C-alpha cells in the first residue's frame, strides 16, 4: 500500500514542487512564526508602564501591582513590566531572546476589529487597499513554504503564492485509492486540484511526525492553541517543511470584566505563554534561527470603561521572541499617559508603525531585498522605516 509520500510522487508533485513559486523547500535556517492575537490586546496589560506616573491613576482597578509585590508585574526595566501570567516570555527576555515594542500600531486609526485586522494583514494603509496578505507577497522573494495552522488560511497568507494550511483532524483518513481518484476528478478544476495537492503535502509532514493521529476532545481554544504550537514546531522542523507559520488566538476583546493580575485576560496571557513555550521546546535547536512575532490589530482604551473592561483603542504592544531576536530591549518612544498625550483623548498614542517591525524582520531575518519590501510587500509605506535592531547580528 502506498503511503502519502508515494502518493505525492505518483502525482509528480515531489518533482515539480521545487519549481513552483513559493513552494521551494526551505534551505535557510531562518524561521518566522507570526502569532496573530485577534480581538485587540490591551498593550497596557501585556507590558504595563508602571513607571509612568499616570499609570495607576488612569488604569484604576485594572492597574497591576508593581514588580516584587503579590501578583505583581514581571520587571523588564524601571519603566515596563510584563503581565504576571507571562513568565515564559519574561525568562526569554532575561536571556536576551525577547524584546517588546510599545506604543506600536498599524496605520489603522478607526476602531473596527475587522478593518483593523484587514489592515494588519493586507499591509496596506487603508481597508481593502490590497486584497492579498503582506506575508504572502513576501513569499515569492523568500522562496519559503508557508503554512497556516488554522482551519482556514488567514488574510495575511492569502494571495497568489501557494501556501498550505493544517489543523488537527479526528476523522479517519480517506484511503489512497480514493485520494488518487479525487486527484484525477479534480484535474480539470484548478480550485480543487491545487488545494488537494497542498493538503496532501501537509499530510505527508504531519503523518511523519505523528500529529495526524491526534484523537479525543480538543479542549477549549486555549488548549487548542497550545497544541497548534506543538504542531507548528513539527512542521517547521520537518525536513521538507515550511519555514514560515501563522497561528491565531482569539478572545482578547475584553470589554467587560477584564481583570488585572487574575481574570479573563490573565488566563488568555497564560495560554499565549504556554503556547510559545511549547513552540520553543518543539523547535529545539531551530529556535536559535527563529523569530516569533506576537501582534494584534490595535490596542484598547487607556481608561477603564463602565463595565470594568476596556474599549477599542489605538496603539498597543508587540513582542518578538526567538533565538534570532536581539532581545532584552524595549523599543518605545513612550508617548505618556497624561490626557493631553493620548490619541483622540482616549488611546495610547502610536509612536512606532507596526509595518516598521515587519519590515525589520523581513529585511534582517528573512533577508528580503529592501527594494522588494518597499515595492511589493508594503507598498505605500515610505513613512515606516524598517527597524534595524530587531535581529541579532
Amino acid at each position, binding site marked *: 500500500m502506498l503511503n502519502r509520500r508515494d502518493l505525492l510522487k505518483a502525482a509528480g508533485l515531489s518533482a515539480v514542487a521545487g519549481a513552483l513559486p513559493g513552494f521551494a523547500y526551505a534551505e535557510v535556517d531562518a524561521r518566522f512564526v507570526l502569532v496573530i492575537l*485577534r480581538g485587540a490586546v490591551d498593550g497596557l496589560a501585556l507590558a504595563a508602564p508602571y513607571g509612568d506616573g499616570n499609570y495607576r491613576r488612569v488604569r484604576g482597578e485594572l492597574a497591576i501591582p508593581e514588580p516584587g509585590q503579590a501578583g505583581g508585574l514581571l520587571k523588564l526595566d524601571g519603566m515596563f513590566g510584563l503581565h504576571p501570567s507571562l513568565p515564559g516570555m519574561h525568562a526569554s527576555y532575561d536571556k536576551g531572546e525577547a524584546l517588546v515594542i510599545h506604543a506600536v500600531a498599524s496605520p489603522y486609526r*478607526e*476602531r*473596527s*476589529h*475587522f*478593518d483593523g485586522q484587514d489592515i494588519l494583514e493586507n499591509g496596506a494603509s487603508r481597508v481593502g487597499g490590497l486584497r492579498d496578505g503582506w506575508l504572502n507577497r513576501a513569499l515569492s522573494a523568500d522562496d519559503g513554504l508557508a503554512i*497556516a495552522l*488554522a*482551519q*482556514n*488560511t488567514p488574510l495575511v497568507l*492569502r494571495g497568489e503564492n501557494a501556501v*498550505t*494550511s*493544517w*489543523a488537527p*483532524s*479526528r*476523522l*479517519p*483518513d*480517506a*484511503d489512497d*485509492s*480514493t*485520494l488518487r*481518484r*479525487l486527484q*484525477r*476528478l*479534480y484535474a*480539470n*478544476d484548478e*480550485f*480543487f486540484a*491545487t*488545494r*488537494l*495537492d*497542498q*493538503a*496532501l503535502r*501537509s*499530510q505527508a509532514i504531519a503523518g511523519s511526525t505523528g500529529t495526524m493521529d491526534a484523537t479525543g476532545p*480538543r479542549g477549549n*481554544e486555549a488548549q487548542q492553541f497550545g497544541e497548534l504550537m506543538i504542531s507548528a514546531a513539527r512542521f517547521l522542523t520537518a525536513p521538507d517543511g515550511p519555514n514560515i507559520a501563522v497561528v491565531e488566538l*482569539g*478572545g482578547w476583546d475584553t*470589554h*467587560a470584566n477584564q481583570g488585572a493580575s487574575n481574570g479573563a485576560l490573565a488566563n488568555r496571557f497564560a495560554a499565549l505563554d504556554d503556547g510559545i513555550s511549547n513552540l520553543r521546546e518543539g523547535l529545539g535547536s531551530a529556535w536559535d534561527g527563529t523569530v516569533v512575532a506576537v501582534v494584534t490589530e490595535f490596542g484598547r482604551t487607556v*481608561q*477603564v*470603561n*463602565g*463595565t470594568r*473592561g476596556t*474599549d*477599542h483603542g489605538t496603539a498597543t504592544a508587540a513582542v518578538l521572541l526567538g533565538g534570532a531576536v536581539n532581545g532584552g530591549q524595549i523599543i518605545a518612544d513612550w508617548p505618556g499617559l497624561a490626557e493631553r498625550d493620548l490619541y*483622540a483623548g482616549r488611546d495610547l498614542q502610536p509612536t512606532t508603525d507596526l509595518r516598521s517591525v515587519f519590515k525589520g524582520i523581513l529585511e534582517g531575518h528573512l533577508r528580503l531585498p529592501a527594494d522588494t519590501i518597499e515595492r511589493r510587500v508594503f507598498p505605500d509605506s515610505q513613512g515606516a522605516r524598517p527597524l534595524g535592531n530587531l535581529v541579532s547580528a
Partner: protein
Amino acid sequence: MTSKKAVIAANRFGLGARPDELREIASRPESWLLEQLAGPSRLPAEIRDLPDSASVLVEVRDVRKGQRAAKKDGVAPDIVEKYGRVVRKHYVEQAAARYRSAAASDTPFHERLVHFWSNHFAVSADKQPLPAIAGLFENEAIRPHVAGRFIDLLLAAERHPAMIVYLDNQRSIGPESALGKRANRRRGDQQFGLNENLAREILELHTLGVDGGYTQQDVTTFARVLTGWSIGGANDKGRFADGEPGRFEFRELIHEPGAQSVLGKKYPQSGVDQGEAVLRDLAVHPSTAQFLCTKLARHFVADDPPAALVDGLANIYLDSNGELSAVYEALIRAEEPWLETYTKYKTPHDFVISTLRAFRHVPEKPKFIVGALDLMGQTPFRPGSPEGWPDTAQQWGGADALYKRIEWSNTVARVVGSRVNPVELGDAVLGTEFDPETSKAIARAESLSQGITLLLASPDFQRR
C-alpha cells in the same frame, strides 16, 4: 425531467436537493421559492419545543449564583462542571434542532434565509452565556421576521437579550444619566459607563456597513442613545436586578438624557423611543440598502455579485421601505441568478446540510454533526466575531479545510455503506447539471462506498 433552474433553485436558493425535489419543482422553480416566503405551515417540533431564552438565562444565572456561593466554601469545581453541563446541554439541543429541521425542511429557501440573517446578526457562542441561547436567538429574533420588513428584524435582533449581552450593552451607562452622574461624582474625573460596542456593530455590521458614511462621533452619540437598552435581572441585586429576568428591559436610570445627533439628524425623543427612531432611519438608509443587497446577492448569485443587480435590488429595497420579501422576489425574478450553476463554493454548513438532505437523513446523534462542522471550521453558532461567517470561496478555500471535507465524505460513505447507488444519487440531486465526467468517475469507483465519497467530495456537490 429536471431543469437547470430547478437545480439552482434547490441547491443554491434551497439547502440542497432531496432526491425527489428536482422532479417536483422542475416546472415551477421560481414559484416554489416564492411560496416558501410565508415560512413552514408548522414549525418543526424540535424547534417549537425548545425552551425560551428568558427561562434559559434564568437557569444559567441560578447555576452561576450557586457557583459563587460554593466558591466561598471552596467547593467550586463541581459547580463549574455543572455550569458547563447546563450550557452545553442547551447548545447541543439547539444545534440539533437547527440541523435536524434543516435536513427535513419542506421550505429550505425560507430556512436558508433564517440562517443567512442569523449570521448577519451574529451572536457568537464563544462568550458566556451565549452558547446557551445563540440558537434561541435565531428562532426568537430572526425566524419570525426573515420575510417581513427589515426594521422589524432589526428591532427584534437588537432588543434580544442575546445581542444585548453579546455586545455588552446591558450595563452601558450614560455619563449624564441619574446613575452615571452619581457614580462620576464618586469617581472624580473618570468617565463612567459608556460602552460603544452595540452602537458600533449596528452601524458597521447590521445596517450601513463599514463604508456607510458614519463617523466615530456617530458611534459615540448612538451609544449614548442606546444606553438603558438592557436586560431584566442583569445583576443579582442592586440597581440592575429589576425587570423580568432574561427579557429586554429599558433602564431609565442609566439612559443618557437629552437629544442626540446621529448622522446629522437630531433625535429629541426620550427613553427607548430615541433608539427605535434611530434604528428606523438606519433601516431605510441608502447605505443599508446597498450593504444588505450586496450581501444577499453575494449569497444567492456569486462571490462578486453583478453591480447592476445589486443596485436594482437596493432600489427596490428603498422603494418598498425595506420590505425584504420584495427584494427576494426581485432577486428570484432577475436573470442573473439563473445564468450559471455552481457559482458558490459551499460553506461547511451548506455541505453538511445538503449531504443530510441528499440521504434523507435526519441525524439522531447531533453531536456527530456539531463535531463535523467544528472540524471543517464552522462550529454552529460560533463564527467568533459579530461579523459572522464569511461568504466567499476565497475565505472558505483552505487546503486543509478541503481535506477535512474529503475525510468527512469518506466517513459518511462508510456509514451509508452500499445501501445507495452514488450515480443514481448524483442524478437525483444534481440533475441536468451533474457533470458527465464526475458521473463516469463515480461509476468506475471500486465500491459503492468509494463512489459516495467521490460524489460528496466532487466539485459538483461541493458547489451550489
